[in-house]
Protein backbone atom coordinates (compact mmCIF):
# COMPACT_ATOMS: atom_id res chain seq x y z
CA UNK A 1 0.00 0.00 0.00
CA UNK A 2 1.29 3.47 -0.80
CA UNK A 3 0.46 6.93 0.41
CA UNK A 4 -1.37 7.63 -2.83
CA UNK A 5 -3.74 4.74 -2.12
CA UNK A 6 -5.15 6.46 0.95
CA UNK A 7 -8.06 8.79 0.20
CA UNK A 8 -7.20 12.35 1.25
CA UNK A 9 -10.01 12.87 3.72
CA UNK A 10 -9.84 15.02 6.81
CA UNK A 11 -12.01 13.64 9.58
CA UNK A 12 -12.86 14.75 13.07
CA UNK A 13 -11.32 12.51 15.72
CA UNK A 14 -13.73 9.81 16.81
CA UNK A 15 -14.37 9.71 20.52
CA UNK A 16 -13.78 6.25 21.90
CA UNK A 17 -13.91 4.54 25.26
CA UNK A 18 -11.93 1.59 26.47
CA UNK A 19 -14.11 -1.49 26.90
CA UNK A 20 -13.26 -1.75 30.55
CA UNK A 21 -16.26 -3.94 31.36
CA UNK A 22 -15.04 -6.57 28.90
CA UNK A 23 -11.48 -6.09 30.06
CA UNK A 24 -12.58 -7.07 33.59
CA UNK A 25 -12.70 -10.69 32.39
CA UNK A 26 -8.98 -10.50 31.63
CA UNK A 27 -8.37 -8.89 35.01
CA UNK A 28 -10.21 -11.73 36.73
CA UNK A 29 -8.02 -14.16 34.80
CA UNK A 30 -4.89 -12.33 35.95
CA UNK A 31 -6.14 -12.38 39.53
CA UNK A 32 -6.79 -16.11 39.27
CA UNK A 33 -3.31 -16.88 37.98
CA UNK A 34 -1.29 -14.38 40.01
CA UNK A 35 -3.17 -14.17 43.31
CA UNK A 36 -5.96 -16.70 43.79
CA UNK A 37 -3.90 -19.85 43.26
CA UNK A 38 -1.16 -18.86 45.71
CA UNK A 39 -3.70 -17.65 48.27
CA UNK A 40 -5.74 -20.85 47.98
CA UNK A 41 -2.66 -23.05 48.34
CA UNK A 42 -1.28 -21.07 51.28
CA UNK A 43 -4.50 -20.99 53.28
CA UNK A 44 -5.54 -24.51 52.34
CA UNK A 45 -2.26 -25.73 53.84
CA UNK A 46 -2.73 -23.56 56.92
CA UNK A 47 -6.30 -24.82 57.21
CA UNK A 48 -5.10 -28.43 57.06
CA UNK A 49 -2.56 -27.69 59.81
CA UNK A 50 -5.26 -26.10 62.00
CA UNK A 51 -7.62 -29.01 61.39
CA UNK A 52 -4.89 -31.56 62.20
CA UNK A 53 -4.18 -29.74 65.44
CA UNK A 54 -7.89 -29.55 66.22
CA UNK A 55 -8.35 -33.24 65.42
CA UNK A 56 -5.49 -34.10 67.79
CA UNK A 57 -7.23 -32.12 70.55
CA UNK A 58 -10.57 -33.78 69.79
CA UNK A 59 -8.92 -37.22 69.93
CA UNK A 60 -7.23 -36.35 73.23
CA UNK A 61 -10.53 -35.14 74.74
CA UNK A 62 -12.36 -38.20 73.35
CA UNK A 63 -9.87 -40.47 75.13
CA UNK A 64 -11.11 -38.82 78.33
CA UNK A 65 -14.74 -39.18 77.31
CA UNK A 66 -14.98 -35.42 76.67
CA UNK A 67 -16.08 -33.38 73.65
CA UNK A 68 -14.42 -30.27 72.28
CA UNK A 69 -16.76 -27.30 72.90
CA UNK A 70 -17.89 -25.13 69.99
CA UNK A 71 -16.29 -22.06 71.60
CA UNK A 72 -12.88 -23.75 71.47
CA UNK A 73 -13.31 -24.63 67.81
CA UNK A 74 -14.31 -21.05 67.00
CA UNK A 75 -11.42 -19.63 68.99
CA UNK A 76 -9.05 -21.83 67.03
CA UNK A 77 -10.66 -20.62 63.81
CA UNK A 78 -10.28 -16.97 64.92
CA UNK A 79 -6.52 -17.28 64.53
CA UNK A 80 -6.87 -18.60 61.01
CA UNK A 81 -9.41 -15.88 60.16
CA UNK A 82 -7.10 -13.18 61.51
CA UNK A 83 -4.28 -14.50 59.37
CA UNK A 84 -6.47 -14.58 56.28
CA UNK A 85 -7.94 -11.09 56.74
CA UNK A 86 -4.47 -9.65 57.25
CA UNK A 87 -2.38 -11.56 54.72
CA UNK A 88 -4.83 -12.17 51.84
CA UNK A 89 -5.48 -8.43 51.21
CA UNK A 90 -1.69 -7.97 51.13
CA UNK A 91 -1.33 -10.65 48.48
CA UNK A 92 -4.31 -9.31 46.53
CA UNK A 93 -3.32 -5.64 46.52
CA UNK A 94 0.46 -5.56 46.72
CA UNK A 95 1.95 -3.78 43.71
CA UNK A 96 -1.47 -2.97 42.26
CA UNK A 97 -0.17 0.18 40.55
CA UNK A 98 3.53 0.17 41.40
CA UNK A 99 4.22 -3.06 39.51
CA UNK A 100 2.63 -1.77 36.32
CA UNK A 101 4.51 1.50 36.56
CA UNK A 102 7.92 0.11 37.52
CA UNK A 103 7.72 -2.57 34.80
CA UNK A 104 6.65 0.00 32.22
CA UNK A 105 3.27 -1.66 31.53
CA UNK A 106 1.56 1.71 32.00
CA UNK A 107 3.14 2.98 28.76
CA UNK A 108 0.85 1.07 26.43
CA UNK A 109 -2.10 0.96 28.80
CA UNK A 110 -2.51 4.70 29.09
CA UNK A 111 -2.05 5.53 25.43
CA UNK A 112 -5.54 4.03 25.18
CA UNK A 113 -8.71 6.09 25.66
CA UNK A 114 -9.22 5.59 29.38
CA UNK A 115 -8.33 7.26 32.62
CA UNK A 116 -5.90 5.51 34.96
CA UNK A 117 -8.30 6.28 37.80
CA UNK A 118 -11.10 4.25 36.22
CA UNK A 119 -8.73 1.47 35.23
CA UNK A 120 -7.33 1.02 38.73
CA UNK A 121 -10.68 1.55 40.44
CA UNK A 122 -11.91 -1.40 38.38
CA UNK A 123 -8.75 -3.33 39.18
CA UNK A 124 -9.41 -2.84 42.92
CA UNK A 125 -13.01 -3.98 42.48
CA UNK A 126 -11.88 -7.10 40.62
CA UNK A 127 -9.38 -7.85 43.39
CA UNK A 128 -12.05 -7.36 46.05
CA UNK A 129 -14.42 -9.76 44.29
CA UNK A 130 -11.63 -12.25 43.69
CA UNK A 131 -10.47 -12.05 47.31
CA UNK A 132 -14.04 -12.60 48.55
CA UNK A 133 -14.45 -15.55 46.17
CA UNK A 134 -11.23 -17.12 47.45
CA UNK A 135 -12.27 -16.50 51.07
CA UNK A 136 -15.72 -18.01 50.48
CA UNK A 137 -14.28 -21.01 48.64
CA UNK A 138 -11.91 -21.70 51.52
CA UNK A 139 -14.71 -21.22 54.02
CA UNK A 140 -16.97 -23.63 52.14
CA UNK A 141 -14.29 -26.32 52.35
CA UNK A 142 -13.51 -25.51 56.00
CA UNK A 143 -17.16 -25.69 56.99
CA UNK A 144 -17.31 -29.32 55.80
CA UNK A 145 -14.91 -30.22 58.61
CA UNK A 146 -15.45 -27.65 61.34
CA UNK A 147 -17.61 -24.62 62.26
CA UNK A 148 -18.31 -21.83 61.43
CA UNK A 149 -20.17 -21.86 58.13
CA UNK A 150 -20.31 -19.23 55.43
CA UNK A 151 -22.62 -16.27 56.11
CA UNK A 152 -23.23 -12.64 55.22
CA UNK A 153 -21.41 -11.66 58.41
CA UNK A 154 -18.36 -13.52 57.13
CA UNK A 155 -18.51 -11.63 53.81
CA UNK A 156 -18.89 -8.31 55.66
CA UNK A 157 -15.93 -9.17 57.88
CA UNK A 158 -13.74 -9.99 54.88
CA UNK A 159 -14.86 -6.86 53.01
CA UNK A 160 -14.04 -4.60 55.95
CA UNK A 161 -10.59 -6.16 56.26
CA UNK A 162 -9.97 -5.79 52.51
CA UNK A 163 -10.60 -2.05 52.62
CA UNK A 164 -8.71 -1.60 55.89
CA UNK A 165 -5.51 -3.24 54.60
CA UNK A 166 -5.96 -2.97 50.83
CA UNK A 167 -6.69 0.77 50.88
CA UNK A 168 -3.41 1.49 52.65
CA UNK A 169 -1.49 -0.67 50.18
CA UNK A 170 -3.19 1.05 47.25
CA UNK A 171 -2.14 4.51 48.45
CA UNK A 172 1.42 3.33 49.02
CA UNK A 173 1.46 1.68 45.59
CA UNK A 174 0.68 5.00 43.95
CA UNK A 175 3.54 6.80 45.69
CA UNK A 176 6.24 4.13 45.94
CA UNK A 177 7.30 0.87 44.36
CA UNK A 178 7.97 -0.60 47.82
CA UNK A 179 4.30 -0.54 48.75
CA UNK A 180 4.06 -4.07 50.16
CA UNK A 181 7.11 -3.74 52.39
CA UNK A 182 6.16 -0.31 53.72
CA UNK A 183 2.58 -1.46 54.28
CA UNK A 184 3.78 -4.39 56.43
CA UNK A 185 5.84 -2.00 58.57
CA UNK A 186 2.95 0.48 58.78
CA UNK A 187 0.42 -2.15 59.81
CA UNK A 188 2.77 -3.60 62.43
CA UNK A 189 3.58 -0.15 63.83
CA UNK A 190 -0.15 0.65 63.92
CA UNK A 191 -0.96 -2.56 65.74
CA UNK A 192 1.82 -2.03 68.28
CA UNK A 193 0.94 1.65 68.80
CA UNK A 194 -2.71 0.86 69.49
CA UNK A 195 -1.81 -2.02 71.76
CA UNK A 196 0.62 0.04 73.84
CA UNK A 197 -0.72 3.58 73.72
CA UNK A 198 -4.47 3.36 73.21
CA UNK A 199 -5.03 4.69 76.71
CA UNK A 200 -1.98 7.00 76.68
CA UNK A 201 -2.19 10.78 76.77
CA UNK A 202 -0.44 13.63 74.96
CA UNK A 203 1.82 13.04 71.96
CA UNK A 204 1.66 9.23 72.17
CA UNK A 205 -2.10 9.31 71.98
CA UNK A 206 -1.99 11.78 69.07
CA UNK A 207 0.46 9.60 67.16
CA UNK A 208 -1.60 6.49 67.89
CA UNK A 209 -4.76 8.11 66.61
CA UNK A 210 -3.03 9.02 63.33
CA UNK A 211 -2.60 5.37 62.43
CA UNK A 212 -5.47 2.93 61.96
CA UNK A 213 -6.57 0.63 64.81
CA UNK A 214 -5.79 -2.47 62.75
CA UNK A 215 -5.94 -4.73 65.81
CA UNK A 216 -9.58 -3.74 66.29
CA UNK A 217 -10.53 -5.78 63.24
CA UNK A 218 -10.84 -8.60 65.75
CA UNK A 219 -14.03 -6.91 66.98
CA UNK A 220 -15.62 -7.63 63.60
CA UNK A 221 -14.34 -11.22 63.76
CA UNK A 222 -16.00 -11.53 67.18
CA UNK A 223 -19.26 -10.17 65.76
CA UNK A 224 -19.13 -12.70 62.92
CA UNK A 225 -18.29 -15.64 65.18
CA UNK A 226 -20.48 -14.54 68.10
CA UNK A 227 -17.60 -14.88 70.53
CA UNK A 228 -16.97 -12.28 73.21
CA UNK A 229 -13.58 -11.29 74.65
CA UNK A 230 -13.55 -14.16 77.16
CA UNK A 231 -14.49 -16.74 74.53
CA UNK A 232 -18.16 -17.20 75.44
CA UNK A 233 -20.84 -17.67 72.80
CA UNK A 234 -23.01 -14.53 72.84
CA UNK A 235 -24.72 -12.33 70.31
CA UNK A 236 -21.96 -9.73 69.86
CA UNK A 237 -23.27 -6.36 68.62
CA UNK A 238 -21.84 -5.01 65.37
CA UNK A 239 -18.71 -2.98 66.23
CA UNK A 240 -19.76 0.07 64.22
CA UNK A 241 -17.05 2.35 65.59
CA UNK A 242 -14.10 0.05 64.94
CA UNK A 243 -15.45 -1.22 61.63
CA UNK A 244 -15.93 2.31 60.30
CA UNK A 245 -12.61 3.43 61.71
CA UNK A 246 -10.48 0.65 60.20
CA UNK A 247 -12.36 0.28 56.92
CA UNK A 248 -12.98 4.02 56.61
CA UNK A 249 -9.28 4.71 57.12
CA UNK A 250 -8.41 2.26 54.34
CA UNK A 251 -11.16 3.57 52.10
CA UNK A 252 -9.90 7.13 52.61
CA UNK A 253 -6.40 5.94 51.63
CA UNK A 254 -7.87 4.29 48.54
CA UNK A 255 -9.66 7.47 47.47
CA UNK A 256 -6.54 9.55 48.18
CA UNK A 257 -4.52 7.13 46.04
CA UNK A 258 -6.96 7.55 43.15
CA UNK A 259 -6.76 11.34 43.50
CA UNK A 260 -2.95 11.27 43.65
CA UNK A 261 -2.85 9.10 40.55
CA UNK A 262 -3.77 12.23 38.61
CA UNK A 263 -0.70 13.98 40.02
CA UNK A 264 2.05 11.37 39.87
CA UNK A 265 4.05 10.35 36.83
CA UNK A 266 2.51 7.41 35.01
CA UNK A 267 5.91 6.08 34.05
CA UNK A 268 8.94 5.42 36.16
CA UNK A 269 11.21 7.87 34.32
Amino acid at each position, binding site marked *: *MTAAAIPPTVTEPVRRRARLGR*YALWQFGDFGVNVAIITLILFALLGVMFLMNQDAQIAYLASRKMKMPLEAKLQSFTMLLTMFTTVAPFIAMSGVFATDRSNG*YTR*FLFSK*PMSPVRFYAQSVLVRLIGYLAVGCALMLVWSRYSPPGISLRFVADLTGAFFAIGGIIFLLSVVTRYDGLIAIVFVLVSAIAWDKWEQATGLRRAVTYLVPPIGKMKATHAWFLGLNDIGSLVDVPFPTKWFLWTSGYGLACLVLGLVLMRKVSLTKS
Partner: protein
Amino acid sequence: MIEFKAVSKTYRSILGTSVPAVVDFSLEIRDGEILGLAGPNGAGKSTLIGLLLGYLSPSAGSVTIDGQLPRAYIERYGIGYLSELVTIPPAWHTENALKRYALLAGVEPAEVQSRVDAAIGLLGLDEHRKKLIKQLSKGNLQRVGLAQALLCDERILILDEPTHGLDPMWTQRFRDLVLSLRRPDRVVFIASHNLDELQRISDRVAIIDRGRLQRVVDLKTRTVGSQAAPYRLVVASGVEHVRGVFPDAVPAEPNEFDLPERSLEELNRQLVELISRGGLISSVAPMHTALEQQFREAIAQ
Protein backbone atom coordinates in the same frame (compact mmCIF):
# COMPACT_ATOMS: atom_id res chain seq x y z
CA MET B 1 -2.20 19.62 15.60
CA ILE B 2 0.35 19.13 18.35
CA GLU B 3 1.87 22.20 19.92
CA PHE B 4 4.78 22.51 22.31
CA LYS B 5 4.81 26.06 23.63
CA ALA B 6 7.96 27.14 25.54
CA VAL B 7 8.03 23.78 27.30
CA SER B 8 10.60 23.09 29.99
CA LYS B 9 10.94 20.04 32.18
CA THR B 10 13.30 19.84 35.11
CA TYR B 11 13.71 16.72 37.20
CA ARG B 12 14.25 17.45 40.88
CA SER B 13 15.63 14.99 43.38
CA ILE B 14 14.65 14.79 47.03
CA LEU B 15 18.05 16.27 47.88
CA GLY B 16 17.25 19.39 45.89
CA THR B 17 19.47 18.81 42.86
CA SER B 18 17.75 19.59 39.59
CA VAL B 19 18.44 18.33 36.09
CA PRO B 20 16.93 20.25 33.18
CA ALA B 21 15.81 17.67 30.61
CA VAL B 22 13.92 19.97 28.23
CA VAL B 23 14.48 23.72 28.01
CA ASP B 24 12.17 26.25 26.36
CA PHE B 25 11.08 23.87 23.61
CA SER B 26 8.58 25.23 21.08
CA LEU B 27 7.34 23.36 18.03
CA GLU B 28 4.14 22.91 16.07
CA ILE B 29 3.40 19.62 14.37
CA ARG B 30 0.76 20.02 11.70
CA ASP B 31 -1.96 17.60 10.68
CA GLY B 32 -0.85 15.41 7.79
CA GLU B 33 2.78 15.67 8.76
CA ILE B 34 5.36 13.02 9.55
CA LEU B 35 7.78 14.65 11.96
CA GLY B 36 11.04 13.08 13.02
CA LEU B 37 12.78 13.81 16.30
CA ALA B 38 16.53 13.27 16.38
CA GLY B 39 19.07 13.84 19.07
CA PRO B 40 21.99 12.17 20.81
CA ASN B 41 21.51 10.02 23.91
CA GLY B 42 20.26 12.07 26.84
CA ALA B 43 19.11 14.90 24.58
CA GLY B 44 15.60 14.90 26.04
CA LYS B 45 13.70 12.87 23.43
CA SER B 46 12.12 10.47 25.92
CA THR B 47 11.13 13.33 28.21
CA LEU B 48 9.48 15.12 25.28
CA ILE B 49 7.51 11.98 24.46
CA GLY B 50 6.56 11.57 28.12
CA LEU B 51 5.26 15.15 28.06
CA LEU B 52 3.39 14.54 24.83
CA LEU B 53 1.68 11.49 26.32
CA GLY B 54 0.86 13.36 29.51
CA TYR B 55 2.88 10.84 31.52
CA LEU B 56 4.96 13.77 32.74
CA SER B 57 3.89 17.33 33.52
CA PRO B 58 5.92 20.24 32.17
CA SER B 59 7.74 22.44 34.68
CA ALA B 60 6.91 25.41 32.44
CA GLY B 61 5.07 26.01 29.18
CA SER B 62 2.37 23.83 27.72
CA VAL B 63 1.82 20.84 25.46
CA THR B 64 -1.49 20.51 23.63
CA ILE B 65 -3.04 18.11 21.14
CA ASP B 66 -5.84 19.74 19.15
CA GLY B 67 -5.89 22.44 21.81
CA GLN B 68 -6.39 19.98 24.67
CA LEU B 69 -3.99 18.86 27.36
CA PRO B 70 -2.42 15.54 26.34
CA ARG B 71 -4.16 13.36 28.94
CA ALA B 72 -7.53 14.93 28.21
CA TYR B 73 -7.04 14.23 24.49
CA ILE B 74 -5.74 10.68 24.99
CA GLU B 75 -8.49 9.74 27.45
CA ARG B 76 -11.08 10.88 24.89
CA TYR B 77 -9.61 9.59 21.65
CA GLY B 78 -6.56 7.45 22.37
CA ILE B 79 -3.34 7.53 20.39
CA GLY B 80 -1.09 4.96 18.75
CA TYR B 81 2.10 4.72 20.78
CA LEU B 82 5.13 2.51 20.46
CA SER B 83 7.58 2.98 23.31
CA GLU B 84 11.34 2.62 22.96
CA LEU B 85 11.23 -0.36 25.32
CA VAL B 86 8.35 -2.65 24.49
CA THR B 87 7.04 -3.54 27.93
CA ILE B 88 4.26 -6.12 27.93
CA PRO B 89 3.76 -8.62 30.77
CA PRO B 90 5.95 -11.60 29.82
CA ALA B 91 3.31 -14.22 30.71
CA TRP B 92 0.79 -12.88 28.19
CA HIS B 93 0.37 -14.63 24.86
CA THR B 94 0.96 -12.49 21.79
CA GLU B 95 -2.56 -12.78 20.42
CA ASN B 96 -4.18 -12.31 23.81
CA ALA B 97 -2.02 -9.26 24.50
CA LEU B 98 -3.27 -7.69 21.29
CA LYS B 99 -6.88 -8.61 22.16
CA ARG B 100 -6.50 -6.89 25.51
CA TYR B 101 -5.02 -3.76 23.94
CA ALA B 102 -7.76 -3.75 21.30
CA LEU B 103 -10.46 -3.75 23.99
CA LEU B 104 -8.69 -0.97 25.83
CA ALA B 105 -8.29 0.96 22.58
CA GLY B 106 -12.07 0.98 22.30
CA VAL B 107 -12.50 -1.60 19.54
CA GLU B 108 -16.01 -3.10 19.50
CA PRO B 109 -15.80 -6.56 21.12
CA ALA B 110 -17.24 -8.11 17.95
CA GLU B 111 -14.42 -6.59 15.90
CA VAL B 112 -11.54 -7.41 18.22
CA GLN B 113 -10.60 -10.70 16.59
CA SER B 114 -10.63 -9.29 13.06
CA ARG B 115 -8.57 -6.24 14.08
CA VAL B 116 -6.07 -8.44 15.87
CA ASP B 117 -5.84 -10.79 12.90
CA ALA B 118 -5.26 -7.83 10.60
CA ALA B 119 -2.51 -6.43 12.82
CA ILE B 120 -0.89 -9.85 13.16
CA GLY B 121 -0.98 -10.25 9.39
CA LEU B 122 0.36 -6.76 8.75
CA LEU B 123 3.30 -7.28 11.09
CA GLY B 124 3.98 -10.90 10.05
CA LEU B 125 3.33 -12.31 13.52
CA ASP B 126 1.15 -15.24 12.56
CA GLU B 127 3.62 -17.91 13.61
CA HIS B 128 4.11 -16.15 16.96
CA ARG B 129 0.48 -15.55 17.90
CA LYS B 130 0.38 -18.38 20.47
CA LYS B 131 3.80 -17.68 21.94
CA LEU B 132 4.34 -16.05 25.29
CA ILE B 133 5.70 -12.51 25.12
CA LYS B 134 8.81 -13.67 26.98
CA GLN B 135 9.52 -16.19 24.22
CA LEU B 136 9.71 -13.54 21.50
CA SER B 137 12.95 -12.23 20.06
CA LYS B 138 13.67 -8.51 20.32
CA GLY B 139 12.61 -7.89 16.73
CA ASN B 140 9.37 -9.84 17.09
CA LEU B 141 8.59 -8.07 20.34
CA GLN B 142 9.11 -4.77 18.57
CA ARG B 143 6.62 -5.87 15.92
CA VAL B 144 4.07 -6.77 18.62
CA GLY B 145 4.59 -3.28 20.07
CA LEU B 146 4.00 -1.78 16.66
CA ALA B 147 0.93 -3.97 16.12
CA GLN B 148 -0.71 -2.73 19.34
CA ALA B 149 -0.07 0.86 18.23
CA LEU B 150 -1.84 0.20 14.92
CA LEU B 151 -4.88 -1.68 16.26
CA CYS B 152 -7.06 1.38 15.98
CA ASP B 153 -7.14 3.93 13.24
CA GLU B 154 -5.51 6.55 15.46
CA ARG B 155 -5.06 10.15 14.35
CA ILE B 156 -1.90 10.58 16.39
CA LEU B 157 0.93 8.06 16.14
CA ILE B 158 3.96 8.39 18.38
CA LEU B 159 6.73 5.95 17.57
CA ASP B 160 9.83 5.93 19.75
CA GLU B 161 12.76 4.14 18.09
CA PRO B 162 10.34 2.08 15.99
CA THR B 163 12.94 0.06 14.07
CA HIS B 164 15.01 -0.79 17.13
CA GLY B 165 15.80 -4.51 16.87
CA LEU B 166 14.16 -4.98 13.46
CA ASP B 167 16.07 -6.78 10.72
CA PRO B 168 16.74 -4.96 7.41
CA MET B 169 13.71 -6.52 5.73
CA TRP B 170 11.33 -5.41 8.46
CA THR B 171 13.01 -2.02 8.67
CA GLN B 172 12.17 -1.50 5.00
CA ARG B 173 8.63 -2.80 5.54
CA PHE B 174 8.25 -0.43 8.46
CA ARG B 175 9.17 2.50 6.23
CA ASP B 176 6.59 1.47 3.67
CA LEU B 177 4.06 1.02 6.43
CA VAL B 178 4.63 4.47 7.89
CA LEU B 179 4.38 6.06 4.46
CA SER B 180 1.12 4.20 3.90
CA LEU B 181 -0.21 5.64 7.14
CA ARG B 182 0.12 9.21 5.91
CA ARG B 183 -3.25 10.92 5.95
CA PRO B 184 -4.23 14.59 5.82
CA ASP B 185 -5.59 14.54 9.36
CA ARG B 186 -2.96 12.30 10.89
CA VAL B 187 0.20 13.26 12.73
CA VAL B 188 3.03 10.76 12.86
CA PHE B 189 5.78 11.60 15.35
CA ILE B 190 8.89 9.43 15.15
CA ALA B 191 11.86 9.63 17.50
CA SER B 192 14.88 7.80 16.20
CA HIS B 193 18.64 7.62 16.25
CA ASN B 194 18.52 6.38 12.69
CA LEU B 195 18.94 9.54 10.62
CA ASP B 196 18.74 7.68 7.33
CA GLU B 197 15.36 6.32 8.33
CA LEU B 198 14.12 9.76 9.38
CA GLN B 199 15.38 11.27 6.13
CA ARG B 200 13.45 8.70 4.12
CA ILE B 201 10.08 9.02 5.81
CA SER B 202 9.85 12.40 7.54
CA ASP B 203 8.62 15.71 6.21
CA ARG B 204 10.57 17.59 8.85
CA VAL B 205 13.08 16.55 11.46
CA ALA B 206 13.48 18.39 14.75
CA ILE B 207 16.99 18.09 16.14
CA ILE B 208 17.25 18.35 19.91
CA ASP B 209 20.35 18.45 22.06
CA ARG B 210 20.79 19.08 25.77
CA GLY B 211 17.05 19.61 26.01
CA ARG B 212 16.94 22.45 23.50
CA LEU B 213 15.55 22.48 20.00
CA GLN B 214 18.61 23.11 17.85
CA ARG B 215 16.98 23.28 14.45
CA VAL B 216 14.14 21.93 12.36
CA VAL B 217 15.20 20.50 9.01
CA ASP B 218 12.53 20.70 6.33
CA LEU B 219 13.18 17.70 4.12
CA LYS B 220 10.38 18.48 1.69
CA THR B 221 11.61 21.85 0.52
CA ARG B 222 15.33 21.40 0.90
CA THR B 223 17.02 20.64 -2.43
CA VAL B 224 19.79 18.08 -2.43
CA GLY B 225 22.29 20.17 -4.37
CA SER B 226 22.00 23.24 -2.24
CA GLN B 227 24.15 21.78 0.49
CA ALA B 228 27.90 21.21 0.22
CA ALA B 229 28.84 17.72 1.33
CA PRO B 230 31.85 15.39 1.52
CA TYR B 231 31.85 12.37 -0.82
CA ARG B 232 33.42 8.93 -1.11
CA LEU B 233 34.77 8.24 -4.63
CA VAL B 234 35.54 4.71 -5.85
CA VAL B 235 37.33 4.25 -9.19
CA ALA B 236 37.69 1.02 -11.15
CA SER B 237 40.66 2.31 -13.12
CA GLY B 238 42.56 5.54 -13.65
CA VAL B 239 43.58 5.93 -10.01
CA GLU B 240 46.62 7.91 -11.19
CA HIS B 241 44.32 10.68 -12.51
CA VAL B 242 42.41 11.21 -9.28
CA ARG B 243 45.02 13.46 -7.62
CA GLY B 244 45.23 15.56 -10.74
CA VAL B 245 41.51 16.25 -10.77
CA PHE B 246 40.87 16.19 -7.02
CA PRO B 247 44.02 17.65 -5.41
CA ASP B 248 42.40 17.51 -1.94
CA ALA B 249 41.32 13.83 -2.22
CA VAL B 250 42.37 11.69 0.74
CA PRO B 251 43.08 7.99 -0.03
CA ALA B 252 40.84 5.81 2.13
CA GLU B 253 41.05 2.28 0.75
CA PRO B 254 42.66 0.92 -2.44
CA ASN B 255 40.89 2.73 -5.32
CA GLU B 256 38.79 4.72 -2.81
CA PHE B 257 39.12 8.40 -1.93
CA ASP B 258 37.43 10.74 0.51
CA LEU B 259 36.59 14.06 -1.11
CA PRO B 260 36.23 16.95 1.36
CA GLU B 261 33.12 19.09 1.29
CA ARG B 262 32.12 20.54 -2.11
CA SER B 263 28.98 21.53 -3.95
CA LEU B 264 27.18 19.17 -6.28
CA GLU B 265 28.05 21.42 -9.22
CA GLU B 266 31.78 21.30 -8.46
CA LEU B 267 31.69 17.56 -7.92
CA ASN B 268 30.02 16.94 -11.28
CA ARG B 269 32.50 19.20 -13.10
CA GLN B 270 35.41 17.30 -11.54
CA LEU B 271 33.88 13.91 -12.33
CA VAL B 272 33.52 14.90 -15.98
CA GLU B 273 37.17 15.91 -15.96
CA LEU B 274 38.21 12.59 -14.42
CA ILE B 275 36.24 10.60 -16.99
CA SER B 276 37.67 12.65 -19.83
CA ARG B 277 41.17 11.78 -18.61
CA GLY B 278 40.31 8.05 -18.79
CA GLY B 279 39.14 7.41 -15.24
CA LEU B 280 36.47 4.74 -14.78
CA ILE B 281 34.19 5.50 -11.83
CA SER B 282 32.61 2.66 -9.80
CA SER B 283 30.64 4.82 -7.41
CA VAL B 284 30.41 8.22 -5.84
CA ALA B 285 28.23 8.81 -2.79
CA PRO B 286 27.81 11.44 -0.10
CA MET B 287 29.72 10.46 3.02
CA HIS B 288 26.85 11.68 5.19
CA THR B 289 23.21 12.04 4.33
CA ALA B 290 22.02 15.63 4.13
CA LEU B 291 20.21 15.16 7.43
CA GLU B 292 23.26 13.66 9.05
CA GLN B 293 25.24 16.71 8.04
CA GLN B 294 22.61 19.02 9.50
CA PHE B 295 22.59 16.89 12.62
CA ARG B 296 26.35 17.15 12.99
CA GLU B 297 26.23 20.90 12.57
CA ALA B 298 23.35 21.27 15.02
CA ILE B 299 25.03 19.16 17.69
CA ALA B 300 28.38 20.92 17.19
CA GLN B 301 26.82 24.33 17.84
